[in-house]
């Protein structure tokens, strides 16, 4: 109890540590959710240059306008449209060639050119598939008129046009919602950084203390255990807040129970503790520990394998990935939230953290060395 009071006094002395423990995680949550709150990419500007100006190209344009992801912007000159592309004012460019309708009717195979901005990869890829889908669909309606004119019975037309139809399902995130896809891992990466900073700060308080108030004086094991319990509880509380906001307030789909997420978060936090303790006792300087920990944890999000799949990462990246507690956590997160796994599966996944326990050896060694010094 005395040690807990000692921690709280130390926190109240440091406005930054207080901020990290209270409002900064909440601000981060609101800011990042705010960024992606639109959820689905809608009304993305697409330049249309219509050199044909026929009923047919106008029909195709109307169909494009009806697609919720597309916002059609007309350009008269190709040069202007190209410039808009280069300035990222539009993300794709679609050109209906001169005499498209005539060429189609005289079977000369006209070409509709689509250029999409792949420098903005996610937006570009989305537009490319949406534009092709819309155009293919509306061209099919034109082709069905041709079939009907040739005397094909109505029921048969659709089958003749596409004998094999495709049914594609996005499993676990049916409308490709970015909030469900991107926001939880980003927040976890952020929480991991905040936890790391809180732990480092709580340790560096000890460097500033007098010899009588020193942690060896109070018994280092008791001091560290107090820190572990107290700060882990604070971070778990913020984690719970994130889960409550995402899965209860925003009602994002979740298949498993939330307490399982909290359990795996606890293990992640303990793994972060172990890394921080090792580096801190090794470097014995708060600025350098922050720099080194920052260098390790800052790229955690790219290594999670959410955006770019982990099975396509090179071996070196796989190794670095295994060193990040967050990449172990995120697999359990997805298995719980999306696949609704049961507790035995979760427990077997959690064994992947066991490697971090090896860090206990250098920590104990370095603490002993510090005591003798």
């Amino acid at each position, binding site marked *: 109890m005395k040690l807990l009071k000692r921690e709280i006094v130390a926190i109240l002395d440091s406005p930054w540590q207080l901020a990290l423990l209270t409002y900064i995680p909440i601000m981060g949550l609101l800011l990042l959710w705010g960024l992606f709150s639109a959820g689905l990419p809608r009304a993305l500007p697409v330049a249309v240059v219509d050199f044909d100006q026929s009923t047919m190209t106008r029909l195709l344009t109307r169909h494009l306008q009806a697609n919720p992801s597309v916002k059609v912007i007309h350009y008269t000159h190709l040069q202007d449209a190209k410039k808009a592309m280069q300035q*990222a004012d539009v993300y794709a460019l679609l050109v209906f060639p001169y005499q498209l309708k005539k060429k189609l009717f005289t079977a000369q195979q006209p070409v509709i050119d689509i250029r999409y901005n792949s420098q903005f990869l996610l937006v570009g890829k989305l537009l490319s598939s949406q534009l092709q889908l819309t155009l293919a669909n509306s*061209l099919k309606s034109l082709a069905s008129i041709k079939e009907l004119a040739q005397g094909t019975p109505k029921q048969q037309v659709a089958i003749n046009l596409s004998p094999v139809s495709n049914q594609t399902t996005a499993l676990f995130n049916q409308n490709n919602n970015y909030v469900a896809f991107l926001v939880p891992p980003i927040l976890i990466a952020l929480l991991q950084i905040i936890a790391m900073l809180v732990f480092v700060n709580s340790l560096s308080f000890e460097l500033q203390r007098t010899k009588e108030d020193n942690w060896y004086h109070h018994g280092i094991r008791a001091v560290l255990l107090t820190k572990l319990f107290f700060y882990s509880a604070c971070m778990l509380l913020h984690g719970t807040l994130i889960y409550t906001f995402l899965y209860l307030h925003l009602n994002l789909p979740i298949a498993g129970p939330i307490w399982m997420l909290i359990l795996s978060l606890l293990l992640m936090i303990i793994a972060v503790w172990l890394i921080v303790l090792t580096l801190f006792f090794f470097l014995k300087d708060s600025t350098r520990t922050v720099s080194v920990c920052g260098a390790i944890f800052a790229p955690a999000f790219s290594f999670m394998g959410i955006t770019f799949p982990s099975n396509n990462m090179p071996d070196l990246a796989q190794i670095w990935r295994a060193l990040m507690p967050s990449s172990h956590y995120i697999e359990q997160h997805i298995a719980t939230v999306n*696949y609704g796994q049961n507790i035995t599966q979760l427990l077997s996944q959690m064994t992947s953290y066991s490697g971090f326990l090896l860090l206990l050896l250098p920590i104990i060694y370095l603490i002993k060395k510090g005591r003798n010094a």
Partner: protein
Amino acid sequence: MNFWQLLKLEFTAIFADKAILLTVLGGGLLYSFLYPLPYAHQVPTEQLIVVVDHDNSSLSRAIIRHADASAKIKIIAKVNSIKQAKEWITDAKAYGLLVIPQNFRRNLILGKGATLSYGGDASYFLIYSAIAQGLIEVGLDTSKSLQRFALLSKGNGSKKTDKALNSIQLNSIPVFNSTLGYTPYIVPGLFLLILHQTLLIATGILGAGQWHQKSYWLQHSSISLVCARICAFFSIYSLLSSFYIGYCFYFYQVNTLANMSEVLLLMLPFLLATVCAGISLSTLFLHRDLPTQALLLSSMPILFVCGFVWPLALIPDPIIWLSQIVPAVPAIKAMLILNQMGAPWESIINNWLHLWVLFVLFFTLAVFAVHQRQKKMRGANVD
């Protein structure tokens, strides 16, 4: 003491500080390698899927072979039911499934049409899009070849069949990043952000370490101190920027469409504005470990607000307004437009002027704030 001596003192202070060296040189070199590391293979390939084949016909086996031949997909197993396939997916052994219904071939021969069902794990968007794209291509191809057989069997010539099947061609081509690679997509923006963040941290650590001790920074006017600090960091970061934008862009095969003088012209206000922002920020810190902490937390929000990951039009306006005071935001936008998308200089003139406005703003702020710090310290001396 003249300006040159002050500049020399600045350099000495920077190079004597291990934490700054660790951030600037260590961080700078490590990040240039570490951040793009996961994306080294550029595109997701050979994603694992399972097949549920209820048909077991020659046609269904051909479809499976074609799917497996796609570079995007690898078929890992054939299972008996959708339930089993689900288990493979929830055990994270596979990321998608292809279902071929019963009587698939028979229905097609009878002219009844049939449906192929695909599913991909959308917990991972890139995996899902690779699986969906790969399987849709296979489905469309099967459809086309069946139509071709039907038309040929009706006695059409092969040329006419071709024209009937492809009455119109959709020529869809990615531009600016023609390989659709992940590194050329993420590197240009990310590297400018790394330069920006490490520069802010370095100036922050230098300032925070000095404000409570008496040293050379008290013996000069705040303007000359700020100017000297700008010169020192600007020269260090010109070198680091040339490594990032010169060497790394080539190494990671990022588009470099602009000519060198234009890029230099763009980097000038970016680095100046960032140093000044860093000096202004540094006056807020008194502990040397705070700048790293504060800026570490800001990195991810800044990256996402730059507009190349998530379209700007969908970000709420207040967040965009707020982001305009960060030099990295206009700089990344301008760099992408100028260097990666090859637009002429006049396209980015607004962003460029924006950077100069930020420079003037932060310069004034830095001079003022450093002056306040000096006054405080001198006041403390008198006491």
